[in-house]
């Protein structure tokens, strides 16, 4: 049932740019971008139970690799973003091999430290290596992009890909393996699961999507700098959106991204300075009264209806 609704919604979204003007399309693109980021974070944290506080590393790497390929090699945008995904896969494989052996809070702290040091490295890169890549604190300007509709479709595609992956995890062998790891990793290991290998596969896939999203966002804004694209606030926004929508659910990150983006958009245009306070209050309220996230509320309502029917 929910899948048919989702499929119908996807159809509507595919046709949306025909009917509406630039502003709603831009807002929708922002929502898709956050849904793709929060969704790829959700694959690892929500399904395999590994809370990564440094996913922004791959967002930033994606942005800079895409920019470098377009500027230095003159490759088309889509090819560059795709290759940025490949680079992120290679780096995530190398980084994940040691870090994913850390458990619980140690993994969270380790990845957070990794993200911060990557940001500093990116800021100092040009000076240290004499290979111009990040532009230091001045950043890098990208060629001006052709319109806003292509970004809408790329972000929609990325969001859809992550959601399909999450849906697939729901009933597949791989998905059961991840849930077992999240529930009790020692027991999972004693039951024959190569937990490290399974976690690394998810980590690598989520890094790939984040890098392509970061690359797309960079080209869309046509200006990137290391302090922004590696900013911890991007990580926290992903985390908050995934938790608000519903951790470990396929549509939770989309709901969280849409909710937070629309509320910020609505409040931000009216109370330019104070809207962040209101958003903080809303986040606290949701976590107090709907700890399973907004999709969790829908689930409770549905069950009550089934119980009374």
């Amino acid at each position, binding site marked *: 049932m929910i899948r048919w609704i989702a499929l119908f919604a996807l159809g509507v979204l595919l046709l949306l740019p025909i009917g509406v003007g630039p502003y709603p399309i831009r807002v929708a693109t922002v929502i898709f971008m956050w849904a793709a980021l929060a969704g790829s974070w959700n694959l690892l944290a929500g399904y395999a139970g590994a809370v990564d506080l440094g996913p922004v590393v791959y967002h930033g790497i994606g942005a800079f690799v895409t920019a470098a390929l377009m500027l230095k090699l003159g490759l088309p945008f889509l090819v560059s973003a795709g290759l940025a995904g490949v680079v992120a896969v290679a780096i995530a494989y190398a980084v994940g091999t040691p870090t994913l052996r850390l458990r619980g809070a140690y993994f969270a702290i380790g990845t957070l430290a990794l993200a911060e040091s990557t940001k500093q490295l990116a800021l100092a890169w040009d000076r240290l290596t004499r290979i111009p890549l990040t532009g230091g604190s001045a950043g890098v300007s990208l060629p001006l992009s052709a319109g806003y509709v292509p970004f809408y479709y790329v972000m929609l595609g990325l969001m859809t890909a992550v959601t399909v992956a999450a849906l697939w995890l729901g009933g597949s*062998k791989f998905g059961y*393996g991840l849930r077992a790891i999240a529930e009790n990793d*020692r027991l999972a290991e*004693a039951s*024959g*699961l*190569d937990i490290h290998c399974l976690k690394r596969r998810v980590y690598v896939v989520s890094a790939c999507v984040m890098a392509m999203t970061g690359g797309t966002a960079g080209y869309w804004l046509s200006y990137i700098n290391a302090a922004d694209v590696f900013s911890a606030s991007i990580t926290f926004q992903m985390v908050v959106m995934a938790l608000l929508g519903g951790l470990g659910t396929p549509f939770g990150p989309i709901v969280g991204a849409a909710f937070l983006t629309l509320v910020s958009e609505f409040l931000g245009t009216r109370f330019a300075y104070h809207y962040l306070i209101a958003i903080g209050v809303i986040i606290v309220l949701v976590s107090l009264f709907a700890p399973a996230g907004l999709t969790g509320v829908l689930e409770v309502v549905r069950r009550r209806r089934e119980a009374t029917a």
Partner: protein
Amino acid sequence: MTKRFGSLTALNGVDFALAEGEILGIIGPNGAGKSTLFNVIAGLETPTAGRVSYRGRSIAGMTADAVCRLGIAKTFQIPQLFPRLTVAENVLVAALYGGGHGLSASWREAREWLAFVGLADKAEKPAETLTVSERRRADLARVLGTGASLILLDENMAGLNRKEVEAAVGLLRDVRARGRTLVVTEHIMRAIIGLADRVVVLNYGEKIAEGRPADVMRDAAVIKAYLGESYA
């Protein structure tokens, strides 16, 4: 094999062989090294010295998941579960990864083993809702689900009442009848004597006796270890 934790020697040169289809009992007072022995065999601990071989292959130092896929699995002294998966999914995961089956074959395995341990009616319940005795049976079903041919049971009957112990002993005999080899540690002597073909007695990490249950019970060193000097 020998296992030391710092200056504490948990196992000191313990040595025994196991025949296919046998039920071996491991007994000994608290702290004798029974759980450590199991952890070393199952790949949860690496032995400080010595060898563990299984069907002619050295397995000491292998990871727990690799040992499990080779065909050795253990239940836990405190029964372990995937709490928010259903009881059937607990066994399913073991069949998927330990047994290496596909999804539909694994669902069949899960249902079969749950019926075998008498938990078929709980299959769709979250595992965290099970009672202690049900958890022990679920843990056994999970181990059977991995397809292991050598099963290590770490005090799988602890905390069960007399009737439940009898049922558990019957169940383990059925497991052996299906061609599995069992190693059982237990405090409940009655259960071990009725079940095991052979018994190894550990005390302070050393093997102090080995033989048929009835003979071992009469062994002076064993009586001394359990009851003290004056009874020997």
